[in-house]
């Protein structure tokens, strides 16, 4: 199993924990990850809110690099994943967009590089039986609220990832690791995404209702696979507490951090020290 791994900009900053745990888990499971040399930003939400050509060309610059590597692209950040797949779709469907991208990049690209999310690689290529077998320290019934957010599942017609309204990829992994995946209604609710700085009030409101719901179903932690979701839910808990007088302390962990623990990797190698809400209750349970 070999993939061109696109880490995304967050991997070098606010999602170093995601990056670190992704590399550690891949190594333990025999997944070979190669970073495309000189990878650049996908443009994220700011890109598509600003200009269509910009929003497609920025991902395309990376897709062409991966095309030269003759590998599938693997992405862990949900936002990058969505932008890559939408760019592929736009280029393949609209000849004028393809032409615009050709002029911007000075090379033609047909939109054909296969883009996979890490969860797809884990579930389809590695497979749950192999993961179950590799578990050294099970989650011991840890109650996990699996949170997918927006960009793993939307737009569904283009991403075709799991079920857009009730995805179960994370839940199936958590169950295979010996955890209890909770039924809850906020799986695909929005955390406010890129509005974190520009409309903090909106993000505090939206993350507040997600955290509230997780607490009411008795979650020990929330498992995520998107850096924007992780930062918003983790960082904004102190704002939510300040505004509502509550005292939420729910750890927001990447699925790769949980999986890494189960595979016997130490918390220090999985970036647990970087979480704002400490995951000590999780670490206590998985020993």
């Amino acid at each position, binding site marked *: 199993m070999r993939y061109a791994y696109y880490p995304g*900009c967050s991997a*070098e*900053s*606010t999602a*170093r*924990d995601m990056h670190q745990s992704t590399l550690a888990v891949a190594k333990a499971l025999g997944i070979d990850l190669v970073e495309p*040399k*000189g*990878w*650049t*930003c996908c*443009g*994220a*939400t*700011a*890109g*598509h*809110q*600003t*200009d*269509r*050509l*910009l929003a497609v*060309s*920025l991902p395309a*610059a990376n897709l062409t*690099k991966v095309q030269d590597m003759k590998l599938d692209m693997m992405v862990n950040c949900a936002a990058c994943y969505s932008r890559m797949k939408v760019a592929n779709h736009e280029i393949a469907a609209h000849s004028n967009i393809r032409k*615009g991208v050709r*002029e*911007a*990049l*000075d090379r033609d690209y047909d939109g054909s590089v296969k883009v996979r999310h890490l969860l797809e690689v884990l579930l389809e290529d590695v497979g749950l039986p192999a993961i179950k077998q590799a578990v050294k320290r099970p989650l011991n019934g840890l109650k996990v609220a699996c949170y997918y957010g*927006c*960009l793993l*599942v*939307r*737009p*569904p*017609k283009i991403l075709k990832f799991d079920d*857009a309204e009730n995805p179960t990829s994370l839940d199936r992994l958590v169950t295979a690791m010996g955890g209890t995946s909770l039924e809850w209604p906020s799986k*695909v*609710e*929005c955390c*406010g*995404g*890129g*509005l974190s*700085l*520009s*409309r*903090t009030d*909106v993000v505090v*409101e*939206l993350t507040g209702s997600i955290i509230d719901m997780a607490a009411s179903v008795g979650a020990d932690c929330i498992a995520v696979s998107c850096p924007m979701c992780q930062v918003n839910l983790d*960082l904004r808990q*102190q704002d939510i507490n300040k505004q509502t007088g509550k005292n939420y302390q729910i750890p927001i962990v990447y699925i790769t951090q949980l999986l890494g623990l189960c595979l016997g990797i130490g918390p220090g190698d999985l970036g647990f*020290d*970087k*979480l*704002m809400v400490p995951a000590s209750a999780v670490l206590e349970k998985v020993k």
Partner: protein
Amino acid sequence: MITIKNKKNGAGLKQAVEEISGVDVSVCFQCKKCSSGCPVAKLTTSRPSEIMRQLHLGAGNELLESDLVWMCASCETCSARCPMGIDVAAVIDALRKLALARGASKQEGNVPLFNRAFLKTVEIFGRSYEIGMITAYKIGTGKLMNDTEKFPAMLKKGKIALLPPRGGDRKTVKRIFKAYKQNKGAKA
């Protein structure tokens, strides 16, 4: 209730929105699934289904002042749930582009400011640089102290990078931004 002003501010936006988004606004039959699922609709005065109706009825530039235009989080729930397959989120994106082009973005001006700060770091470094972006954004808003209480803990934990990113193919990204700016000039 939807109010359409008699005296419209500029020509109807429908055609421009349809050209930018590729969406046929007129197939909307007002089932309001988009508004029901919209996570910010409870906070805004305008809702996605109302925007669709107003466009259809010939609303002009006044629509660009709707708070939803900049409070929309781009979660795409509206597009995913529309029974007619309308990409409502693309309509909102089109309204943002028109708001910027026609100078109507002052009301909720912080989102475009954030987007500019974000894209500027990408243009310079090839990858986004959070601290650079946050600094540029804060200088732009004049609210330097908002959220700063979180930085010491984030830096200590290594939750945010201090130095700008290296290793990105800056040359290609500069080409893309050049093409985008030329293209924007051609459209205007």
